[in-house]
């Protein structure tokens, strides 16, 4: 909570909040939830578990704001890569919803998740897949990203990556895993907040790329020529290897 407060304070002090509004909205919501949970934990301990799980879904859902911020910030000046990323993200959502529909059609007694742990695990898994799609585009097109956005990706990725594995183990092993689950959950989030504190201390935007000439008109020519080049090389190597 303390670190979250520091990041939010720095964001207003350093005027970074307006640059990454969705990310800081997420952080403000999570801080508000943490404060509310602390209040319930100290004043109404009996209803804490119920309150925790109901607010946890708000936390998971608002996490999609971070994903949207990453998508917007990382790929913004690269129209082609952004288009590719958008289709990939939509593809992931379509695949997930098709899978859910298929499962529910196949099994009459099937529900999206048997427990709250499983529901959170599934929602986090979708975030993981979407973030992986964005990362795939960033790495494939060698897109240069600045310290702030890199920090957002590393922090949130670390948190949801460990969380999905942790929740899967919690769901599989059962209550015996609960102490480990608590420990990993807390410390993975602390690690993420430390990453954000360091990387979002001051405003460091993405490097501005040099735009190529004749950007709008000649993609087809570029793609055709590159494809011809690749095909020629591949056929040459194939024949050489066979001979």
């Amino acid at each position, binding site marked *: 909570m303390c670190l979250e407060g520091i990041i939010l304070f720095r964001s207003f002090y350093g005027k970074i909040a307006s640059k990454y509004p969705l990310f800081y909205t997420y952080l403000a919501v999570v801080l508000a939830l943490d404060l509310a949970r602390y209040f319930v934990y100290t004043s109404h301990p009996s209803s804490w578990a119920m309150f925790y799980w109901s607010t946890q879904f708000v936390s998971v859902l608002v996490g999609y704001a971070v994903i949207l911020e990453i998508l917007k910030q990382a790929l913004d000046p690269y129209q082609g890569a952004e288009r590719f990323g958008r289709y990939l993200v939509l593809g992931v959502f379509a695949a997930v919803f098709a899978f859910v529909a298929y499962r529910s059609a196949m099994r009459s007694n099937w529900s999206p998740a048997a427990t709250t742990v499983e529901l959170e695990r599934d929602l986090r898994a979708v975030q993981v897949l979407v973030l992986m799609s964005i990362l795939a585009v960033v790495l494939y097109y060698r897109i240069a990203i600045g310290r702030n956005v890199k920090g957002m990706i590393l922090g949130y990725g670390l948190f949801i990556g460990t969380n999905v594995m942790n929740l*899967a183990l919690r769901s599989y092993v059962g209550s015996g895993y609960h102490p480990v689950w608590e420990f990993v959950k807390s410390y993975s989030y602390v690690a993420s907040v430390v990453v954000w504190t360091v990387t979002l201390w001051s405003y460091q935007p993405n490097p501005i790329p040099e735009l190529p000439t004749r950007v709008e008109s000649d993609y087809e020519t570029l793609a055709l020529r590159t494809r011809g080049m690749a095909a020629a090389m591949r056929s040459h190597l194939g024949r050489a290897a066979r001979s």
Partner: protein
Amino acid sequence: MITLVFFLLIGAALLFSLFLLARRAARAEGSAQALVEAKQALQMLQGELLPPGLVERIFARQDFEFVASSTPRQVQELFLQERKRVAVSWAQQVRAGVLRLMNFHLGQARFYAQLSLATEMKLAVNFAVLLVACRAMQFALYLGGPFAVPGMVGRTVGKAAQLCETSEKSLAFLGAPALGGLSKDTARRPAAS
């Protein structure tokens, strides 16, 4: 159990992607720099790696036959080792050239608003196959020695000409004539961080 493995795998895959992102150098790859690198890769392929004389010399069996006919066994083994090293290194360099040309395409394509998802997917597969083929050739040379792929010379010369022609066209259409000046400008300019 399958569900557990699935979730563990996607979590681990994300953490591995983050590792790749964290260790990647943070530099802005401008189009001018990519153009220079592509031109250099093309020049390297055309002028240094694929000239018929050089490729014929590296993979010529006559040299070995001459060595085999007039020198002791140790010298023959040494000759084969050295020639294999040269051949493997040659294959590595060809692969590096292909990688640079691929980087050039990616560096350009990422800006195009009209980018086609299907075309990009096909190109990604083409490049992946090409790079795997290069690696397989490298592996075959490493295991089978410099004469493991004997028909390579003639075909390399023919296809190299084809490759260079298509690459040259691609670079020319993107304004490669200005590359001379561009190279100098890039050399003078400090690297972007």
